């Protein structure tokens, strides 16, 4: 049964290599039949990757311990849900999952764009197959999910595809099981979202390469990939926020983001992709920045690869590096190859990418977007620098009086915090600036209300007790952005109301529907502000308290008082649980109980690693976050850590808003004909204030 998966991988490998050859040869010799063969090869590869994935999934579900991967990821007592998520829980499986997602994207983009992109298509196919081929290579030659477990004559067990000399197949009666800290709902779906985000960035990269190869460097491909970038961007956003949520509810330190290498790896491509989604608007409108947009697509793609490399090769230690192996050299070779290959192609086509750049004014939306790009890329560069600093400092320590060290949250927060604040301020300003040029009059008209609103919010925050200058300033900037968005909505709605006689809700809905990208984008910005509010609240105003409590004793943190009532023991299917009961009062009023606890998993991997089962009372104003840290005297005394995180919930609400905004911007248009008619009547050159 498992052999089927291996055979499927081998066939996919061969077909991918064939497909690349057929596509490129077909494009070169102008033979449509070969190009078609390339496309069909891609579909075949996708089919066999799906088959291999299905085989592994079934093996995991059937607890087929003849596979080394299954032994390491599954145990007899592990619930089926986690057996399924074990597919992407370990090294080899996650590589197969990567490949499967990439196959899915490849098939989807090929099916959707084949007819529309007659010139680009062989190259797009070749690039997609190239990346697929790379992942198949890694699986077949370095981290095969279908490896078996062999017992050597010496008694040791090894994982290998074929039997080593004298070895017999080892068939353990039980498996190791998934790492218990991964046994969390968020952890199960968050990698899926991250992968959907990361891998989706291969599609714009493939189009960029194809556009360069074919010199079809007009606006056509740019329009196509906007959506194909927005979709992975949305998944990346979801994935990052879910990862934060996981860290928040599982790791027990009251925080959500530690600037850990794995977190940074997901964040880096998000930054460059965000920059790209903005700068591409300038190219769409003005035909400028062609090279820069190429560079951003390239950076986004390489950063996903570098991120995978960093987290999977073990070059940087991380809280999240659960699976490490020897795939590093292969990844590095691929990164180097794709980097220099793309740069060579870009250099070769540079003359075709020249565009006459001109700006009407320094004070325009174009320049705001460019400064936004500068900040996003700068944050990405600094984050990458900080992430790689252990290597950099190790290298430097050979020649300079510098010690090898790693940066933690303090450095990242101090360095990127001010840049993020500038970025948010720009995010608020750009929509208030006109394309091409903003006159003094326009500036006054557009900026007055948002600025006043921002000042009002800052003042309100100050009155409510926000005394740290940076926090008050941040609230002011947030107010400015929100004021700007409100003004835009209000004006648009009011105009529709008076000119079209629509009711307020109808006018608002029509506004969004008639210009999804613009108003969808504003919704995303609003979500960003909510996330930012949560970050300020939780970072600058977190309160904490810890104490050893004997039964009946009370711990007071801020406006909360928690009374320890006692410990209870219970059993789940795979673990024993110990929970403390605490009565909670807020501002003196009882608000219920919380039951923080610990789970002791009885799998091999989990027996020594109890997981924190943190009790969180979420609220719009603040979260109460209670960790049971330990106990003694047969549970008569226990120690607790309690955090009060102001505004924390807004991070998740903001995340949902960002996703809704993205969906609004992405949603297919309903009034196609009406829109085209409107476009025909409004001359494009007209740029009223």
């Amino acid at each position: 049964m498992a052999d089927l998966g291996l055979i499927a991988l081998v066939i996919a490998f061969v077909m991918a290599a064939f497909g690349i050859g057929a596509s490129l040869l077909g494009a070169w010799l102008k033979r449509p039949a070969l190009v078609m063969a390339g496309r069909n090869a891609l579909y075949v590869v996708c089919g066999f990757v799906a088959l291999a994935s299905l085989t592994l999934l079934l093996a995991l579900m059937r607890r087929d311990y003849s596979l080394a991967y299954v032994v390491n990821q599954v145990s007899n007592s592990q619930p089926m849900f986690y057996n399924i998520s074990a597919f992407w829980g370990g090294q080899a499986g996650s590589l197969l999952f990567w490949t499967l997602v990439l196959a899915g994207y490849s098939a989807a983009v090929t099916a959707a764009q084949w007819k529309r992109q007659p010139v680009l298509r062989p190259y797009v196919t070749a690039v997609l197959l190239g990346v697929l081929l790379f992942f198949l290579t890694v699986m077949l030659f370095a981290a095969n999910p279908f490896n078996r477990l062999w017992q050597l004559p010496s008694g040791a067990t090894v994982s290998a595809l074929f039997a080593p000399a004298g070895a017999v197949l080892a068939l353990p009666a039980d498996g190791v099981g998934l790492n218990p800290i991964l046994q969390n709902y968020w952890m199960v779906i968050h990698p899926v979202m991250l992968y959907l985000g990361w891998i989706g960035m291969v599609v714009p990269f493939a189009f960029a390469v194809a556009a360069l190869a074919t010199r079809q460097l007009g606006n056509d491909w740019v329009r196509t990939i906007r959506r194909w970038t927005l979709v992975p961007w949305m998944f990346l956003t979801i994935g990052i926020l879910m990862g934060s949520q996981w860290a928040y509810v599982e790791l027990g330190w009251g925080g959500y983001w530690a600037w850990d290498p794995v977190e940074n790896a997901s964040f880096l491509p998000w930054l460059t992709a965000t920059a790209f989604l903005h700068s591409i608007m300038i190219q769409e409108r003005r035909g400028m920045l062609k090279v820069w947009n190429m560079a951003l697509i390239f950076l986004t793609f390489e950063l996903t690869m570098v991120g995978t490399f960093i987290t999977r090769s073990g070059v940087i230690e991380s809280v999240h590096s659960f699976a490490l192996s020897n795939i590093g050299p292969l990844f590095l070779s691929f990164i180097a190859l794709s980097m220099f290959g793309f740069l060579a192609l870009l250099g070769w086509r540079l003359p075709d990418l020249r565009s006459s750049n001109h700006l009407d004014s320094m004070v325009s939306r174009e320049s705001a977007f460019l400064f936004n790009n500068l900040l996003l890329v700068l944050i990405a560069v600094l984050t990458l620098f900080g992430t790689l600093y252990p290597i950099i400092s190790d290298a430097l320590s050979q020649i300079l009086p510098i010690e090898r060290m790693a940066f933690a949250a303090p450095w990242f927060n101090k360095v990127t915090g001010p840049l993020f604040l500038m970025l948010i301020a720009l995010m608020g300003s750009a929509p208030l600036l006109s394309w091409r040029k903003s006159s003094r009059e326009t500036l006054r008209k557009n900026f007055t209300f948002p600025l006043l609103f921002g000042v009002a919010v800052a003042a309100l925050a100050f009155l409510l007790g926000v005394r740290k200058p940076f926090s008050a300033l941040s609230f002011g900037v947030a107010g400015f952005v929100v004021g700007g968005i409100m003004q835009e909505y209000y004006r648009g709605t009011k105009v529709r109301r008076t000119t079209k006689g629509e009711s307020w809700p109808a006018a608002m809905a029509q506004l969004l529907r008639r210009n999804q990208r613009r108003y969808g984008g504003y919704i995303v910005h609003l979500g960003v502000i909510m996330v930012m509010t949560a970050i300020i609240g939780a970072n600058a105003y977190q309160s904490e308290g810890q104490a050893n409590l004997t039964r009946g004793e009370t711990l007071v943190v801020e406006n909360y008082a928690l009374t320890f009532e006692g410990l209870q023991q219970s059993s789940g299917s795979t673990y024993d649980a110990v929970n403390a009961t605490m009565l909670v009062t807020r501002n003196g009023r009882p608000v219920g109980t919380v039951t923080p606890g610990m789970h002791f998993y009885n799998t091999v991997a989990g027996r020594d690693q109890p997981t924190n089962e943190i009790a969180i009372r979420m609220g719009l104003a603040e979260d109460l976050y209670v960790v049971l840290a330990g106990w003694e005297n047969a549970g008569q005394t226990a120690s607790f850590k309690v955090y009060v995180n102001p505004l924390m919930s807004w991070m998740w609400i903001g995340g949902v808003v960002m996703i809704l905004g993205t969906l609004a911007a992405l949603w297919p248009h309903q009034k196609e004909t009406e829109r085209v008619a409107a476009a025909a009547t409004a001359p494009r050159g007209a740029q009223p204030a």
Partner: protein
Amino acid sequence: MTGTGLTPTGAPAAKKGGIGRWAILGLAAFFVLLLMYGLLIAGDKRVEAGAAPDFTLTTFDGDTIQLSELGGQVVVLNFWSTWCVSCKGEADDLEQAWQDFKDQGVAFVGVDYLDQEPLNLQWLEQYGITYPNGPDIQGRIYNAYGVQGLPETFVIDQQGNVAKVFVGPTTRAELGAEIRKLLGDGAG
């Protein structure tokens, strides 16, 4: 890579294109080299054979031990810490092995990795450790030997080469056998 992408777009940048291109390529090459270096140092770098890295250790008693000055002796170098659970298991064995060989030209050195002052002294007292021990400030010796976890015990022969590494807790018998082998070799 901030500054490099935009330039070539502009017509005025055409002349500088050459430098810009090389700068980008240089940056990319540098980046790849850096990752390659990371990969190299990430690998297993425990010193399992060859010359044992020299080190200087200031013991808890204030003496200075330098490996190169222990020349001609078999040296047993044990890495431990009070927070290491399995170090407890081998502490007695190590002391007994020291008692077995201390008069036969064998030196024992305990390296206390990332540890705290009062606790480690209590530990030495508790287990009655009599061979010299000292703190490894900031893990310099630990890193030099590429130790991967605690405890690890390096046996260094009379020529100053690593003869054997015990990964994880060792025993009096295991250690004794290795030392005897080296002493035998040295004599013969």
